């Protein structure tokens, strides 16, 4: 492991609370994690360690944070209150901010129609089930526009605005 390139303040950039530093590598987060069954496994403890050591390059290349199922067991069980799930999200945020290829395409979907998928357009099916028409934001262009304007003020959208431009 190349340690000379490590950034000792990386933890501040990623997860600026001391929660993470409390980790004493007990491995509780690992043993019950669903995504730890993956290949490669999500090893929350190891990610925490990489952050603490400031292993920037290794961390930037690591995909496992995205395998998290967000079940938050680690958060519940962590004896040191490291808040590992928050850390996972923070690593993703840091990766997204530092590597545009990490930016999840789903946010473009949300920007465009309010959701990651088309909602409320299955009118026929809904009717057959006796369901009313759904007042989705997709069907409320004025409102959607306001929502988009708001998002445009947020870092991920403003910094990657090309992704959101109408073709």
């Amino acid at each position, binding site marked *: 492991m190349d340690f000379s390139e490590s950034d000792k303040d990386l933890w501040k950039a990623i997860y600026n609370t001391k929660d993470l530093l409390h980790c004493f590598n007990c491995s509780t987060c690992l043993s019950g994690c669903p*995504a730890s069954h993956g290949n490669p496994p999500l090893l929350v403890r190891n990610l925490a360690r990489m952050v603490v050591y400031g292993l920037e390059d290794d961390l930037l290349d690591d995909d496992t944070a995205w395998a998290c*199922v967000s079940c938050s067991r680690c958060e*519940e069980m962590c004896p040191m209150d490291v808040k590992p799930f928050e850390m996972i*999200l923070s690593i993703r945020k840091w990766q997204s901010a530092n590597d545009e290829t990490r930016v*999840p395409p789903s946010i473009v979907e949300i920007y465009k129609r309010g959701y990651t998928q088309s909602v409320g357009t299955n009118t026929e099916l809904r009717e057959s089930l006796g369901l009313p028409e759904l*007042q989705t*934001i997709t069907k409320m262009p004025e409102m959607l526009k306001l929502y988009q304007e708001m998002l445009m003020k*947020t870092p*991920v959208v403003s910094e990657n605005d090309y992704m959101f431009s109408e073709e």
Partner: protein
Amino acid sequence: MELCLFLGCNTPAIRPDVERAIRASMPELGVDLSDAEGYVCCPAFGAFPSTDDDSYLASSGWNLSIAEAKGLDIMVQCGSCYSSLRMGRDHLAHDETKLARVNELLELTGRKLECKTKVRHVSEILYNEVGAQKISQTIKKSLEGLHGVVQYPCHTLFPSEIVGFEESPRQPKALRILTEALGATVDTYSRELQCCGGAGGFSKSTPVEATAFVKSKLDAIIEETQADFIVVSCITCLMYLDNIQKKLNEAEGTDKYHIPVFDYNQLLALCMGFDPKQVASICTVPRNSVIDRI
């Protein structure tokens, strides 16, 4: 009581029969529902919560403000939506800076958030507000003679101080008690608390391992219980457990995996006498074996 119904995306788009079941069953129990017009993505953990706080919390704020404007608490069925909204609300409720920033953003849209609205899960409403007793008194048909197993949505359990409502999140019981209220026998099994594995990147990035993971759960159900059905209270659990069985059968060349999966509200609505075609019609594993016996 009246609650603001937050449907998310999967339920209305893919499994609207669940939506129908909710809309049908809850008012019967005295829970009136009001739609969250113009709601947006909760947002999903894999989206804005994975990019930055502003976009995450602004979206949470957007949704919360809709209910707040109505003066109602939010009711959610989807586990991810529930957890995302509750965590988002938690950030905003406990961090004035974040709330101020979100209000700054919401102001552009003419909205405002005081963070008064609470986010509640449908199973919690049923368990705490309605109660098992009222449910058994209300239903017209019963699941008597049927065995079920439960799948707790992780998102309603952990972290307990933010999303939890169970007395003991490590030994939850709400869904079991609710299902028993419908007359079913609920069997326990070793992997009851195991996550379905359907959410997040896990099942997409390493499908082989994820399938093995859920298979261990289904195998436990088959080997250890007499389950006629699986009951869930989360759209992800429902879809994943339902859909994966077919894939497993195809992969293994068997028809071993054929346990019907229901959302709790579907069973509730069925017991209330609603038309199965409306409240429980969309599934991969056929549900006749259960529906015919209600």
